[in-house]
Structure formats: structure tokens, C-alpha cells
């Protein structure tokens, strides 16, 4: 055992409103299924929270294939929120997740303002989740998703409607595909969001020069992975500075050091997304690395890192 290991373990707990997490490391919606898919590799009860794949009222078929394309230091996806609908989600995924000792954040999608609230109401009837993440930022659907997240009016409206549907913590997931992310963040905060999560993917495209065809069937898709980290850090920093509510930061996090950077920028929680595909144990690696990072630098509480950027 080296000297560092003998120092006291840091307090890894963080809070998102009334939701207490045992550590800041969450999963990014859509990259982790319902959690079950990763359970051969990850003890889910070690995570700060499991954030599920987006769920809508009715089943959604998603987009045509190909749905992904690898790009420089990242990837594009245009899955299109394929999901089996809230009934199947409640009976199969939520029921299973509830057997575990881990906070469950259900990511909620809708084609209309009303649909978001109805999904939450249905889950509340079934006993509820620990928190809801409202997805107003998916770039891969024509109706719903990002349509609600790129202007203050619709973003406020969806948040208000969801707020009326539950007392539980409400996290609104923001799109980076906007002129001013701070103004959207303020709009959802003023409607009662308990936290914001950012960033969702950046709208992009990839082309195969030889075939002169787009690499994605839907032509455009959402860019994720290390390529977007600098943009995500900048947006987290801007939003955290402007808002009084907690921020969940994500975008290209692959290592514990990435997570530290997001927390310094102002994130109270962090989410691992695309990195789960490359190494299914990334979440655990980041939790362990973050703990070690704090211990080695005598950071007593990981929460002390939140917004501790020195400028």
C-alpha cells in the first residue's frame, strides 16, 4: 500500500437538489440502456445514478440504418429515441432497476409538451423514479426532442408541464445546438427545474467521399465523444456561473481527470456516455480514479471541486 492509500477516504457524496448521490458519476442517457445491459461489467450499485434510455408514451421505432458513424475522436449517432414505450419500460426495466440500491433517473421524451408529462405521470403511478431527466435536446427526431430545447418558449412550457406532473427532482437536459445556452438554462430554471444536464450531442454529419453518400441514413446525427469535450466544458462553465441550481456535466468524459475538469467548471454531477462503448467499465474506472485523485490531493469532499476553477 502506498502512502496515498493511507490518507482518509474522501467524501464522494454530491447533491442534485434533493437527490443525494453516493458519488458524482452517472450514466448518460442512451449509452447505457436501462443499466441491465451493462450489469455483466458494472456493479450498478456503485454508480452515482443510472440514467435510463429515453422513454416515450408509445413505442418509437427509431431511424433507419446506418445509425452510427465513427468520426475523429468521436462518433455520430442518429438512433432516434427507439424505445418500447412507457408501459414496457415500467414493467420490464423500471421494475428490475428498483430491485437495486441505486438512484434511478428516468429520461423522458415526447412528441408534444403533453406527452412528456404523461410519461412522468405514468411512471409516478407505477411508484415513480428517483428523478426525471427531461430530454428537450435530442437532435435525431423530427417532432419533439431538440425542437423543444432550442427556444426559451417551448423549453419553459415543457418544464412547466413536467413540473406539474411530479414533486421529484426534475433535471432538464439541454441542447448545445443553440445560440445562447445560458438563456435556455435560465428559462427552465425559472419554471422549477431542480437541475440542468448538458450537453446533449452536437448536430453534425459525415460523408463517404467514394460513394458520395452520407454515412448516416438520416444524413445528420448527434456528435459525441472526446471531440466535443471542450465545447461541453465551456457550456457547463457558462451555465453553472449563471444559475443557482446544480448542473450535471457531460460530453466526452473518458477519464477521472475529465470528470474533475467538469466539476471544476461547475458540475455537481458528471455523466459517462460514449466512453461506455469503448470500455464498458468506464463508469467504475472514473469513480475509482476520482476517489484516488481527491485522496492524493487531500480533497476531503469531492463536492469541494464544484466550481473551484481558478481564473
Amino acid at each position, binding site marked *: 500500500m502506498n502512502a496515498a492509500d493511507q490518507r482518509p477516504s474522501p467524501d464522494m457524496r454530491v447533491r442534485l437538489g434533493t437527490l443525494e448521490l453516493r458519488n458524482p458519476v452517472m450514466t448518460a442517457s*442512451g449509452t447505457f440502456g436501462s443499466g441491465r*445491459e451493462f450489469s*455483466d461489467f458494472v456493479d450498478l450499485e456503485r454508480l452515482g445514478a443510472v440514467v435510463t434510455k429515453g422513454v416515450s408514451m408509445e413505442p418509437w421505432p*427509431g431511424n433507419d440504418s446506418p445509425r*452510427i458513424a465513427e468520426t475523429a475522436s468521436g*462518433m455520430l449517432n442518429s438512433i432516434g429515441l*427507439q424505445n418500447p414505450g412507457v408501459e414496457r419500460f415500467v414493467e420490464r426495466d423500471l421494475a428490475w432497476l428498483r430491485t437495486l440500491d441505486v438512484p434511478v433517473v428516468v429520461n423522458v421524451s415526447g412528441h408534444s409538451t403533453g406527452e412528456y408529462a404523461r410519461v412522468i405521470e405514468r411512471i409516478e403511478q407505477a411508484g415513480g423514479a428517483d428523478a426525471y431527466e427531461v430530454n428537450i435536446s435530442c437532435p435525431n427526431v423530427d417532432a419533439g426532442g431538440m425542437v423543444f430545447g432550442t427556444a426559451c418558449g417551448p423549453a419553459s412550457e415543457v418544464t412547466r408541464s413536467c413540473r406539474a406532473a411530479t414533486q421529484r427532482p426534475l433535471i432538464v437536459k439541454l441542447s448545445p445546438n443553440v445560440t445562447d445556452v445560458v438563456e435556455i438554462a435560465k428559462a427552465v430554471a425559472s419554471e422549477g427545474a431542480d437541475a440542468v444536464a448538458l450537453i446533449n450531442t452536437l448536430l453534425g454529419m459525415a460523408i463517404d467521399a467514394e460513394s458520395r453518400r452520407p454515412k448516416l441514413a438520416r444524413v445528420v446525427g448527434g456528435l459525441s465523444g*472526446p471531440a466535443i469535450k471542450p465545447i461541453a466544458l465551456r457550456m457547463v462553465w457558462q451555465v453553472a456561473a449563471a444559475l443557482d441550481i446544480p448542473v450535471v456535466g457531460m460530453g466526452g468524459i473518458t477519464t477521472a481527470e475529465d470528470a474533475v475538469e467538469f466539476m471544476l467548471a461547475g458540475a455537481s454531477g458528471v455523466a459517462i456516455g*460514449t466512453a461506455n462503448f469503448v470500455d464498458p*467499465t468506464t463508469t467504475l474506472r472514473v469513480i475509482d480514479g476520482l476517489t484516488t485523485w481527491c485522496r492524493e490531493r487531500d480533497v476531503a469532499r469531492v463536492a469541494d471541486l464544484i466550481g473551484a476553477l481558478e481564473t
Partner: protein
Amino acid sequence: MTGEAHTHPRSHPPVLESTPVVVNDRVAEGIGLLVLDAPLVATHVQPGQFVHLRVAEGTDFILRRPFSVHRVVGGRIEILYQVLGRGTRQMSELEQGDVIDVVGPLGNGWTLPDDASHALLVAGGLGAAPLGMWAERLAERGVAVSVAQGAPYSERLVARELFERVARRVEIATDDGSAGERGFVTGPAERLIRSGEVEVVFACGPERMQQAVANLAAAAGIPCQVSLERLMACGIGACLSCVVSTTEGLKRACVDGPVFDASTIKWESSEVPPKH
């Protein structure tokens, strides 16, 4: 096909294994054979299952690449790959002693219908890869094996020796006629299916070839399984990148396949070949 043949009991859960490269040889123009020392995966992998390889680590972000296991020899797994894009180019540069990590075994492999005693394997190009271990397994189980194999030219007939060793009969087609008959593998496949001798067909290769073989098998009233290739990110059922249209809705190639009962597949009209 019997009901049992449709249901795949869950095989051994996948593991994450660090595997040293034992051999990485060029076996034909643009085709490599990677042999990994992977005792855990080797113990549990079933014919037709695949592994997800992290072909490069550290310097740059790169998704894992899925490859079916061609053969298992002792604690080693053999992977045949074609150099087509960034990931497979990285693979071709791996050297003996390099360590890469492997997730596997993944997916559902081939299933032998209970009463089948004579199987036809149809291999188009690198489609021979997932059929190598299956041919060996069938022969061990006393099932008669016929093979129809096709490739652009004779050097590209990967695993031909393996097929010739275990199969009762191997019929070859090449695009240029440098081995066997000139033409597509569907030629010999059609004759073998129509011979009335084979009771089940297992096919892997270009999707249009698989579709053609599936149609021939269906016309002859013979069950057929195909192994489909899709671009894949997670490989464990979470990301929904690799979906396949079936009569039972969208299925994931990674966990519901890659082997499917061909009669359930809704073939896509315009195939965009994966290049990864």
C-alpha cells in the same frame, strides 16, 4: 425449423479479457489472421458468436470492432479480418506480444435443428469466418457437412483447407474462375440445396448473397440461418446502433443475433456495406 431451434439459451456472460497477440499474419491480399491468447473467451465461445476488440488504445478514440471467432485452438481464438477502414488498418499493424482487450463471447451463434443430419454451409468471402468453427463442431457431432464457398479469386478462399478437411464436399466459385467455377457462390449453393440432400443451411457473406441463399432455402422448404453484419457501438444491447428489421420488429444484431432465422429477416432493399 423446430421451436427449440429458435430459442438460444443464454450462453456464458461476456467477459473483458486482456489478450496478448500470438500471431497476426497476412493470409491473402488485404486479409489478416489474428490469433489471441484468450483463455476465458476461448473456453466459452460458441460457433457463430463474436468478440468486440479494442484494436487501439490510448492515443485516439476508436470504437470497438466486432469480429466473429473463426476457430478456437486451445486457449487461443482466431479472427479473420479484411482491411477495409481505420479500425482494421490498426489491427493489421498489431504485432506479436501487443496486448488488446476483448469483450466476449457476445451474441447468439448457430443452432442445429434437432433432427438435421446434413448441413450446407454457404460462405461468401470473409463470410467463411464464423463458419470455420461451426464446420468443425458439426463434423465432431457426426453431422454431414457440405460447403459452398465463394470469393473474388482463389487466394481469397480463406479457410478452404479447413472446409476441405471436415466437409464431405466443398464446391467453389470465384469471380475470375481462378478456382472452381466462375461466378457467385449462389451457383453451387443452389445446386446443393436442390440436390435434396441438405436439411439445413447456414450462410454468411455479403447481405445480398445471404438474401439469395435464404430465398433458395425457403423455396426448397429448408430452414436457413444467416449471420448479419451491422455497424455496432456497444456490442451488448444498449445503444441500438445495430438493429435488424425482422417480422418480430427491430432486433439487435449484437444480442438477438448476429445469427438469425433467415425466414424472420425483412431484407433491406439498398445495402450500405459496413466500412469500419
